[in-house]
């Protein structure tokens, strides 16, 4: 039912979604913490910028990324000097997914952080745990549920990401063609609908598995 190209697409999708989620996590957590705990002015502006990829159609996000990461873009020309190419590579797909899923990740983590009992963090500090120490031993474990939720959301979003990816990474079978791009291609082929459908099913199954895994992790963390 699935062609070898499809299996490649599945592998690529998983690679992109996983890498994008893991890459975005530290920055996502940092920005969520900044938004949740700090009292700096201009928080709304940071939040607005973080939310941009959500507000703009993915195609536009892809186009804006193309403008800045393309060979003539300001970041792109910089990367070019180090021999790093983003356009038409899996890196581009990962970046596209990271950017588009980022607001979801930040929102989730932020909500989690805001609901932590600050007294627990205070207690840890008075027990000699520095800021970073209490971050890793108290704050993160206490918000793991929200972090997991954010990661699941982002992973799922990455699995379905199409608009920005096709612009930034192109639709190159075997190289950057993830599941959504393959589905797109099937739907523009005679009789491709059934194959598109089976790829949809794969997507659904993958996201279910991620969901179940995150629930299981949830439960294990509660037990320990």
């Amino acid at each position, binding site marked *: 039912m699935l062609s070898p190209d499809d299996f490649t697409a599945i592998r690529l999708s998983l690679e992109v979604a996983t890498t994008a989620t893991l890459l975005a996590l530290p920055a996502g957590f940092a920005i969520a913490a900044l938004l949740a705990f700090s009292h700096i002015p201009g928080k709304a502006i940071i939040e607005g910028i973080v939310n941009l990829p959500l507000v703009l159609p993915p*195609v536009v996000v892809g*186009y804006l990324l*193309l*403008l800045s990461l*393309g*060979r*003539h*873009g300001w970041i*792109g020309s910089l990367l070019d000097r180090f021999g790093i*190419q983003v*356009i*038409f590579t899996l890196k581009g797909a990962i970046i596209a997914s990271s950017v588009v899923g980022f607001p979801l990740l930040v929102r989730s983590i932020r909500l989690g952080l805001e609901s932590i009992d600050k007294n627990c963090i205070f207690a840890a500090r008075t027990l000699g745990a520095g800021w970073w120490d209490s971050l890793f031993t108290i704050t993160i474990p206490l918000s793991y549920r929200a972090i997991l939720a954010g990661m699941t959301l982002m992973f799922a979003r990455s699995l379905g990401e199409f608009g920005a990816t*096709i*612009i930034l990474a*192109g*639709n*190159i*079978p*075997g*190289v950057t063609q993830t599941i959504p791009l393959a589905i797109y*291609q099937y*739907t*523009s*082929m*005679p*009789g491709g609908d059934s194959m598109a459908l089976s790829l949809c099913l794969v997507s659904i199954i993958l996201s279910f598995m991620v969901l179940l895994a995150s629930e299981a992790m949830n439960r294990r963390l509660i037990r320990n």
Partner: protein
Amino acid sequence: NISVAASMTNAFKDIISEFNRQNPATKIQPNFGSSGSLAKQIAQGAPADLFVSANPKWMKYLVDGAMIAPGTDGIFVANSLVFTGTPGSTATDMASLVTLKRIAIGTPQSVPAGQYAKEAMVKAGVWQKLENENKLVMAKDVRQALIYADRGEADGAFVYRTDALLAQKAKILFEVPQALYSPVVYPMAITTGGAKKPQTTALYNFIKSDAGHTILVKYGFKPIE
């Protein structure tokens, strides 16, 4: 790397595998997308060597941007416009379109097929009436217009002959007379980057060869010398 308009996906898959059979050393990565986004990618320095557009406008955009190796751009296939819809529809020619409720076309500003359809309807004198009555549904591409016609959401759609063959339920109701619209042509060109590689030229020539034409004809295109 070659950037190919999505409507030629199948034809080019065949072309590439055939070309690879003859030149096993050459590795070709096709990038399928809408002509506009492909053109923009190339304008931003995407490493595409060959550009196949469904629309001369985007080819011109790149030529103006000096992204195309001089002299390599040219029309290589043609297509034709048909009106497709559920069998048994009242539409039999352009004039009868006014009896329909919904007609799907590609957005004229962005989709070439839509533009040709508009041209034809204007010439046939039905455009103004149809637009005033909000009977036109602008699809984001030909493929979507076809889906509407196929699913029966629209009474019919203007699509290319090559697309109409993909439909499951919808049938070609009538061919749009060629006199009503400018020729539907697909330009192809080697980019400035691709000009440096001999393989690009090899592929370019292969497409224009008889072997290439055979494949294009198989998918409904009409090769042009």
